[in-house]
């Protein structure tokens, strides 16, 4: 009931348009707007009905069709305006969707023909005017709704009847293939091909759509070969975007065009068809071979009667196949299309052709496979997945073609590998990249895919394994590859301290991921090509697994055989292959979550490689430069290809000898690169062996540390990266931890390099960096270092470089100890001398009066403790307070005999290990105070100065006392920096053990300083560097802060400041000080010296303000009389004086 009602209402709605339409069926210029409107209404109504799911009854359809047909019939088709025609066609297209199910063949044919005519423009023959694109789109749409195949569920009447759709479709198809209709079909095809090239995008799209369905279903088998060339040519044009100005086509267009081609090719030369026609024979079984005679005669088939068909023969196939190959080859640019849709289309295309034409078009297989392989390496996830899936499906399919294609695949790999050296030499970056990507893609097929699980192609891994195995002939292909894989020498920046070292010093505790520095190929300039090459080797290694070990070892052999370019290249190859084989990645983001089980053989090889690198690390420096034979041999091999870069060389006189080889910019020996790559290789072996790498650290640590102290940045950066990588691989938190845990190994290897046999001058630097890297924790291990250093010092004391290095190491150790705050001794009570209590001016007579009053009193007050030493004296008997706790001790008896160390403030605490260590350093180093080299002397003095704060007095003072004459003599050293170092030591001593130094400073040091000052004063007067004051007067000191005299001044002033603070000076000496140091208060003196001098006078003021005042005031000329001679008008000291004198 409801259905009837719906029909009724629909009918009513349609009627409102149809009836007037019929009335106006004869088009006149006046009626056109009305018709147009009516048609629009009708279209809208139909569209609405269809959208609402209305089921069109055949009668309804006929009812709507009638006015349209009369419109078309009553008017001359060419005269119908485009707009009207478009609307009519749109309605027809809409109508045909449901109508298809009930359409009779005649109506179908009629509508088809009219659409075809409009598309092809034959309706307006002679008028020379084409229909516009919109009309054509409508026509093509209409065709689409007539032609496309329906699935049974779409059936409006009886969805259960599965065969009906098929049956109707077959009816139409059969009709289309009749000889009578075939010209129409051909015409339509032609028209569509033309429109497919239209720049109008919707038209293009729908045309391709219709074309594909026609190609797939409607064209008769025998007819397809006839249209194949045309189809291919026009479709390639479409796909490549040849017609458009942009030079490329939209992704969906490409995909659609490829689809049409795919149908055309498969239907024309597909295996099935050709086998059926006996052109080729498929040999799957032995029986196929037996029946060879019978199949040959069959072909002269029935279809030969058709006038438009082409007979498939062997010669035809041969020709077609080669033509097709050319056409397919032309599609290569599509691999680099920007849109994934196009790429997916290409993948589908290649895969279907490949699987459908294994017998017929064998020559294109490698091409198609290469498409798929390149696509597999596409950055688009979807594309790559699609290509990967199709490849795997092809290679695992049950058909016999699998083996064939596999062969082709391996052949491709082989060819590519063989072509690589040539491409590298010719600087064809993009080709190199292409080849490398393809090889990597082949390799990737060998591993199972994770996402949707797909099987691995085991044949590939065994094939690659064979290639890299003992029988793969690496000796042959390896050499040619190595001679082309050249690296350019990095720009050599020699720095005193390497960048890596500075990096370590800045931030020793944090573990950063440090990348290995990038190396540049000589023949590959683009980044992507380089990455592709790397990826290729890695993939080869991964695929071959342990089979590749032979090749890796071969490369390592070559790499270890010299330092030339080939050796470097070989190391690089070995690095990448091993990275792949061991599944090691330097990329921190791709840390594997699962434990990788690596084979025993791999680990063994890795271990061997690490050992070899470590063993050969030292030897190379003695090696002679390789003979010049190498470059000549390498050029011999590649005479075929010449790549000229840069300016064209002009020959002076034609015909004259010009074969003098241009000077090679790349030297044959590349030790720096060799080192850097060796370090990389070490890191990789660490990645493979992981925790089993630990025993190897014995050998490996030295090369790494040695690399870090290298003065070329690339080596030190590599070494740092290697150290970090080894740290993470062996699961240490920081490099410092690693080194600390393996300190014995590192020390062992360093001490080995300090023997006469293996002497390495850099070993001391390594030791220093080792100490620095480990930092504060080194203290517990440092005893050995110090021991070692002094042993070597004894042995090598004549060699300045080594002594210098060793002393530097000792300095590092002391620095490390110093940094440890725990080692600072609490010596406050003894270090600072407090002068007499400052008395307020108003009361300064009070104390005198006090004394005066009591001067005849008895002396009992004398027994009171000195006020200055209050805190340092105990108020009760020693040990009384802690009696109880001591009694609780397990062994009080032996202690009771002597004073307990902890309770006697003047007895030293038992020395800590650090202090024992420093004692050791100090006591052994004092002998070097008289060393022949001034730098050593200065270093030892500074070392001693450093160790003063951390040493217990009991250890320090005897040594100092013992060495005192030497130290004093150093103050008279010929070298100023030694003198300043000695002064620094005296300053440190006065600061920390003032009472010990009291007599020494005033008796021994001060007279020498006085002499020094006078001498320096004289020297400054004649020095070119001395400071001139602005007004032409004489300045004080030198202009720069970097002269020895400046440093010496500074050292002297600070020493005396410390002395004044720490030691109670005699009045005479104070006066001398006041007088002698006046000139440093001169406003023209160096700022730093002025500051030091102010400090000194400040200290003097605390002690004897009156003397200071008198001296300075006299200098300024404020005071006359007996001190008037002190006046020095040339010194402008007033500003400074006012800062600390309250006057």
């Amino acid at each position, binding site marked *: 009931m409801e259905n009837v009602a719906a029909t009724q209402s629909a009918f009513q709605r349609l009627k409102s348009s149809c009836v007037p339409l019929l009335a106006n069926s004869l088009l006149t210029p006046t009626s056109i707007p009305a018709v147009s409107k009516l048609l629009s209404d009708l279209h809208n109504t139909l569209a609405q009905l269809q959208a609402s799911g209305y089921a069109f009854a055949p009668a309804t359809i006929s009812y709507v069709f009638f006015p349209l047909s009369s419109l078309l019939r009553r008017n001359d088709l060419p005269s119908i305006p485009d707009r009207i025609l478009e609307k009519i066609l749109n309605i027809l297209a809409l109508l045909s969707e449901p109508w298809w199910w009930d359409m009779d063949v005649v109506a179908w044919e009629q509508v088809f023909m009219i659409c075809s005519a409009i598309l092809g423009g034959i309706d307006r023959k002679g008028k020379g005017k084409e229909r516009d694109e919109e009309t054509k789109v409508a026509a093509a749409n209409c065709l689409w709704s007539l032609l496309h195949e329906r699935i049974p569920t779409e059936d409006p009447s009886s969805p259960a009847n599965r065969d009906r759709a098929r049956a109707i479709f077959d009816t139409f198809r059969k009709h289309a293939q009749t000889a009578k209709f075939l010209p129409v079909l051909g015409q339509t095809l032609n028209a569509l091909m033309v429109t497919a090239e239209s720049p109008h995008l919707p038209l293009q799209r729908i045309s391709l759509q219709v074309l594909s369905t026609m190609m797939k279903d409607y064209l008769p088998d025998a007819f397809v070969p006839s249209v194949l060339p045309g189809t291919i040519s026009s479709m390639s044009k479409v796909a490549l975007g040849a017609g458009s100005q942009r030079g490329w086509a939209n992704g969906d267009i490409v995909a659609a065009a490829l689809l049409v081609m795919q149908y055309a090719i498969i239907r024309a030369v597909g295996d099935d068809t050709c086998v059926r026609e006996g052109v080729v024979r498929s040999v799957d079984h032995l029986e196929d071979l037996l029946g060879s005679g019978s199949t040959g005669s069959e072909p002269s088939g029935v279809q030969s009667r058709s006038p438009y068909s082409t007979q498939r023969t062997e010669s035809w196939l041969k020709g077609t196949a080669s033509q097709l190959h050319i056409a397919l080859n032309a599609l290569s640019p599509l691999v680099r299309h920007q849109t994934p849709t196009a790429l997916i289309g290409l993948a589908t295309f290649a895969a279907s052709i490949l699987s459908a034409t294994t017998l017929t078009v064998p020559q294109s297989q490698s091409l198609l496979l290469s498409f798929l392989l390149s696509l597999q390496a596409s950055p688009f996830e979807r594309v790559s997945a699609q290509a990967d899936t199709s490849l795997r499906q092809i290679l695992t399919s049950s058909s016999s073609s699998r083996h064939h294609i596999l062969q082709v695949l391996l052949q491709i790999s082989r060819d590519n590998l063989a072509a690589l050296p040539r491409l590298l030499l010719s600087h064809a970056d993009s080709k190199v990249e292409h080849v490398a990507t393809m090889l990597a893609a082949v390799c990737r097929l060998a591993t199972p895919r994770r996402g949707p699980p797909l099987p691995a192609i085991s044949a590939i891994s065994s094939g690659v394994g064979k290639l890299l195995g003992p029988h793969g002939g690496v000796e042959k292909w390896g050499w040619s590859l190595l001679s082309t894989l050249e690296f350019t020498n990095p720009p050599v920046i020699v720095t005193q301290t390497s960048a890596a070292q500075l990096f370590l010093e800045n931030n020793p505790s944090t573990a950063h991921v440090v990348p290995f520095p990038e190396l540049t190929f000589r023949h590959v300039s683009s980044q992507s090509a380089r990455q592709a090459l790397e990826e290729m080797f890695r993939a080869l290694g991964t695929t071959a697994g342990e089979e590749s070990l032979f090749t890796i070892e071969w490369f390592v052999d070559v790499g270890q055989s010299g330092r030339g370019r080939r050796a470097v290249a070989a190391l690089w190859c070995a690095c990448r292959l091993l990275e792949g084989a061991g599944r090691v990645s330097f990329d921190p983001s791709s840390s594997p979550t699962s*434990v990788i*089980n690596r084979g*025993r053989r791999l*680990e*063994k090889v890795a*271990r*061997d490689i690490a050992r070899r690198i470590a063993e050969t690390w030292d030897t190379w420096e003695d090696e002679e430069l390789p003979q010049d034979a190498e470059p000549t041999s390498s050029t011999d091999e590649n005479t075929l290809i010449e790549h000229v870069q840069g300016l064209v060389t002009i020959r002076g006189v034609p015909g004259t000898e010009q074969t003098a080889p241009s000077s090679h910019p790349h030297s044959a020996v590349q030790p720096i690169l060799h080192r850097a790559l060796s370090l990389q290789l070490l890191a990789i072996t660490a990645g493979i062996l*992981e*925790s*089993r790498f*630990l*025993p190897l650290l*014995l050998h490996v640590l030295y090369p790494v540390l040695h690399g870090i102290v290298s003065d070329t940045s690339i080596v030190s950066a590599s070494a740092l990266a290697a150290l970090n990588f080894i740290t993470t691989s*062996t*699961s*240490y938190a920081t490099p410092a931890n690693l080194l600390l*845990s393996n300190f*014995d*190994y590192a*020390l*062992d290897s360093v*001490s*080995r390099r300090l*023997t*006469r*046999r*293996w002497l390495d001058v850099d070993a001391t630097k390594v030791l220093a960096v080792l100490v620095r890297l480990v930092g504060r924790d080194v203290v517990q291990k440092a005893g*050995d270092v110090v021991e070692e250093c002094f*042993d070597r010092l004894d042995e090598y004391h004549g060699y300045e470089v080594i002594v210098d290095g060793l002393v530097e190491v000792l300095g590092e150790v002391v620095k490390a100890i110093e940094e440890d705050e725990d080692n600072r001794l609490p010596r406050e009570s003894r270090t600072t001398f407090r002068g007499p209590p400052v008395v307020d001016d108003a009361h300064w007579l009070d104390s005198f009066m006090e004394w005066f009053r009591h001067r005849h009193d008895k002396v009992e007050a004398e027994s009171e403790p000195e006020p200055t030493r209050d805190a340092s004296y105990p108020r009760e008997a020693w040990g009384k307070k802690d009696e109880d706790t001591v009694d609780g001790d397990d062994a009080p008896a032996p202690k009771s005999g002597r004073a307990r160390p902890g309770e006697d403030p003047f007895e030293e605490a038992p020395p800590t290990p650090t202090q024992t260590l420093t004692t050791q350093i100090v006591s052994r180093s004092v002998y070097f105070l008289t060393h022949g080299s001034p730098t050593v002397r200065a270093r030892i003095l500074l070392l001693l100065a450093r160790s003063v704060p951390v040493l217990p007095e009991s250890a320090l003072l005897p040594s100092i006392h013992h060495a005192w004459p030497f130290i004093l003599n150093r103050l008279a050293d010929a070298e100023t920096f030694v003198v300043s170092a000695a002064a620094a030591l005296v300053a440190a001593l006065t600061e920390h053990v003032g009472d010990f130094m009291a007599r020494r400073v005033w008796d021994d040091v001060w007279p020498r300083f006085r002499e020094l000052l006078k001498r320096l004063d004289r020297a400054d007067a004649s020095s070119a560097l001395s400071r001139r004051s602005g007004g032409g007067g004489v300045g004080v000191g030198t202009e720069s802060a970097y002269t020895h005299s400046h440093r010496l001044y500074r050292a002297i002033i600070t020493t005396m400041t410390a002395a004044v603070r720490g030691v109670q000076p005699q009045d005479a000496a104070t006066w001398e000080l006041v007088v002698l140091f006046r000139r440093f208060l001169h406003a023209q003196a160096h700022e730093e010296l002025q500051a030091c001098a102010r400090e000194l006078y400040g200290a003097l003021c605390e002690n004897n303000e009156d003397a200071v005042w008198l001296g300075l005031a006299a200098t300024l000329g404020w005071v006359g009389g007996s001190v008037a001679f002190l006046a020095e008008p040339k010194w402008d000291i007033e500003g400074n004086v006012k800062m600390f004198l309250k006057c």
Partner: protein
Amino acid sequence: MSAAPPPPTPKHIVRSHGAQVNVVCFSDDNERILSGDATGVVVVTSTRSLRALANWKAHTDGILGLQEFEEQIITHGRDNKLHVWRRIFEPSRSLGGSAALPGLQTPQLCYSLDVNALNFCRLALLPLPPEARADDRHALIAVPNLVESSYADIWTLPGKQRLHAAIGKEGQTSSASDGRDVRNAIGIIMSMHLMSAPHPHAAGRSRLRLLCAYENGSVTMREYTREDKEVSIEGMGWDVLWTVKHHVESVMAMAVSKDSSFALTVSADHLIGRYNLADAERPETREAACTVYRTKHPGNACVAMRDDGRVCAVGGWDGRVRLYSTKSFKPLGTLSYHKKNCQSVAFARSQLQSLPREAAGGGDEEEDEMSEDEKEERARWLVSGGQDNRVAIWSLIEFGKT
């Protein structure tokens, strides 16, 4: 003749000791180096990782002797104790395990023996052949007599039975019954070697022999000739086969070749005594069998011999280790590293004894961490322990046909 190889340097230095190293020795499979120092600390160092596997205070006083015996370690200290420890095994590193090193283990003490260590003589061990073993008797051990250091006792291990007491007493004139006031002419035993010799008359049986080196520089070979009693006291039944005195100073060390064919002694003087044990038995050849070689370097502290008996190493008080051919006493080289007295030297085993497989924990796992070449190289190692607290490992050349 090609140029002489450059002076060798130690391959590695082991710095595990905090006091002077008294004894060093190799384990039978070359996997471990055992070293004992003057404070009683024993360190077992792996020859693979060169790290301590165990480091423990075995004795309260200095170590006199140290030896690995099958699954056990025998330590002999100056605290008058002889301890037998269960040997520790190298912790097997699990695959992909953490890099953290397990803490060092302390071996488990099996049993102890009280000995007289008021002398400088280290133990002499004689492992018994399998057919002669009993539950409580796996090896015999010779140590100085409990009361008199110039005599020797022989004990069984692990039974701790004293089989022979005061060997060497019988031959002496027992004129002084109290024994104390008479100056012993030969002095205390400085070094001993216990061995078994084939029975002169009965096939398949053997007799115990004890070679002792004395403070006065003499060397005496004794044999236990009594057939009826297994146990002896007062040195009864021990006949002196021969006595030779070559050295003018006391013998500092003695080494016997592995096949027990000859012995070497060194002393504070510059002589090396060589004793051909077989020929020395016969009086007519004794003169020729016991020879003395004069070296240029007096003051030798220790001597060791390679397994094949062709090369010996003598450690001197000058800290150097000198290598000699044992046939011609041609100097083969000097290893100079120690700055003080070299106290002990030991050669690695060149003929590896096949140990029972079950011993090595996860043997196969560890096997391939060291290649055959490396193992061969390791078999040519020599270790020396010095007063400077260091143990030096040297890798020697083959000394092929020299």
